[in-house]
């Protein structure tokens, strides 16, 4: 399975967008993880909808918007109302924790806005409203196996619909109110997006992605990934390879787990 990367978006502490990340990688700098993610407001949404978005929704929308804007700049003639795929392990745990707390009260009261924002496809819903886009929109969860499953599903969707697909993989730490250990609450948020096209007819400055299923993943010493934690951050080495691709640094295959004993081999070409 092959797909052309047409554009990329990236958001994490110390990483404002993919272009900045690329410059850092080419000049051998490391991102400053102590920085918080810049404030963002989805200006493409009507004001009343914009006000209702949460940090989780904003992270997904910001990263989606970056990929779409650079896609529109590179391909002004191409239809930009693309099918979308949002991949996230937990959804909005700030909301789910508050709702679980609310129903434990003597007089349970859930805010209507919080409730409709609680659906896993809330970012997809806001995105389609803001972009006036009536294409198919999906929202999936696949635990720690986000990268392999996200890429596979996005490429198959692009084959299926015969057009590019916008994929956004985003994860945040679990909310402090969740009754879980502190490790899961202290991870860094991470989000990246790609517009992928399986038709191979659109030319791009980015490399072509080739995917194949395999049960054999060679053991390789782990490259340092400062963002290790949430599943979306596992894309860091892939994004690094893409950033360094044109300078000829990186051509080796990468393996991402599809589940506990299968892998997707990803090659750049």
């Amino acid at each position, binding site marked *: *399975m092959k797909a052309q990367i047409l554009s990329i978006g990236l958001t994490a502490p110390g990483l404002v967008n993919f272009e900045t990340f690329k410059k850092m990688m080419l000049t051998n700098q490391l991102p400053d993880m102590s920085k918080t993610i810049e404030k963002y407001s989805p200006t493409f949404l009507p004001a009343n*909808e914009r006000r*209702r978005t949460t940090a989780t929704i904003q992270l997904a929308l910001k990263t989606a918007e970056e990929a779409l804007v650079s896609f529109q700049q590179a391909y002004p003639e191409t239809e930009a109302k693309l099918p979308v795929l949002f991949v996230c*392990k*937990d*959804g909005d745990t700030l909301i*789910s*924790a508050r*709702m*679980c707390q609310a*129903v*434990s009260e003597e*007089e*349970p*009261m*859930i*805010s*209507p806005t*919080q*409730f*409709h*924002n*609680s*659906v*896993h*496809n809330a970012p*997809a*819903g*806001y995105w*389609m*409203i803001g*972009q006036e*886009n*009536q*294409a*198919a*929109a*999906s*929202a*999936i*969860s*696949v*635990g720690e*196996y986000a990268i392999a*499953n996200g890429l*596979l*599903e996005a490429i*198959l969707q692009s*084959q*299926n619909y015969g057009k590019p697909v916008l994929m956004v993989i985003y994860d945040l730490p679990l909310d402090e109110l*969740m*009754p*879980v250990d502190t490790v*899961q609450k202290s991870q860094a948020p991470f989000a990246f997006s790609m517009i992928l096209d399986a038709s191979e007819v659109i030319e791009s400055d980015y490399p072509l992605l080739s995917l194949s299923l395999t*049960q054999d993943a060679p053991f390789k010493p782990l490259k340092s990934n400062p963002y290790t934690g949430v599943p979306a951050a596992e894309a860091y080495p892939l994004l690094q390879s893409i950033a360094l691709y044109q300078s000829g640094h990186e051509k080796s295959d990468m393996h991402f787990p*599809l*589940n*506990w*004993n*299968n892998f997707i081999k990803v090659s750049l070409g």
Partner: protein
Amino acid sequence: MHIIASTLVSALGSGKKPHIDAWTEGKSGLSQETNFHQQMPEIITFLGEVKGVESVTLPKALEAFLCRNNQLAWKTLQTEGFNNKVEALIEKFGPNRIGLVVGTSTSGIATTEDVFRHKLDADSYCYQKTQQMDSLAQFCCQALNIEGPSFVISTACSSSAKVFAVAQRWLNAGIVDAVVVGGVDSLCLTTVHGFNALGLVSSTVCKPLDESRDGINIGEAGGFMLLSHAKFSDETNPSPVEIAGVGESSDAYHISTPHPEGEGAQLAMLAATEQANIGIDELDYINLHGTATPSNDLSEVSGVSHLMSEKSSTWISSTKGFTGHTLGAAGITEIIFCQWMLEEQVVPANLNLTNLDSMLVQKLARSNISVPLETIHLSETNRRLQYVMSNSFGFGGNNASVILKRESAE
């Protein structure tokens, strides 16, 4: 895609027979006195509860997954010998060649509610295997020994209809030989209180399409189908029904209110008919999303009537009066209903409908669409069902329509 096996558990019972019996007798699974009502004394409504879910025990190796949602999943997998049919295909093709894609809206959130309500000790709570949104896929893969691609789709009430599009993609790409699709959603306090806060919960039994309809009754259900491109000669009683088309779309209108003319719904229905390679008038029956909220039913019937010509004699009904709105499981519940309708040649009643809303009558005036008030057994008529469609729409303006076909009309 051929249907190799299917299983369904809802408030009407476990497996095909109790469901067909309930349709025939016009008997609802909704009740205002369920066990779950004890957890929410302040809300007056009917619920579609599956009896005894809380006492379902999981095998030792799967105990960490214990929550109402996975208990209902386990009960459903054991029904109609579904697990054995999956096992037989695993033996044939190997565990890596079977995929699994399932839908849910709230996963095992009831377990987290229990921690906050001091009914469960935080030490015995396992977030990853209960509330985490992919818990159902993890659980089903381990329960069935499936090792192919798998994930959860969570697009609110269209979740377990969209799984059919994923199954098609996997089978078409040749990365699997068969796919388990399905969905499970179980009763929890957050959904009842959340829908109540939106003013969408009816205090009486839900009445889809009726002029006095005033909201939903929440139900729970689990359903699975085993799908493949191939038919297997060693199958006993193969189903004559196949999945003929899947269509998906977005409203791009509002996060929790459907487009008044059902614009997005129309796009999903058209995409499904295009894939099934039929005209919309060729549909013999449409299972409506039909939640019984004033806005959904008006929007959906508007959308249907926009597409249908005067000559199309199509039945439409909502089966939510039997099961309640099973949310993330509504898609699979009603798609399995469609399979059974085609197998048994039965059109289920639009239960609890007394007076069709005059606005809907107006919408339907220029078509030949009819809404059955009682279940129709077609063996007693000269009409047959060949193509039927199921609609599922969710928050976020997320729509999916699935068309099923009976291979050879009798």
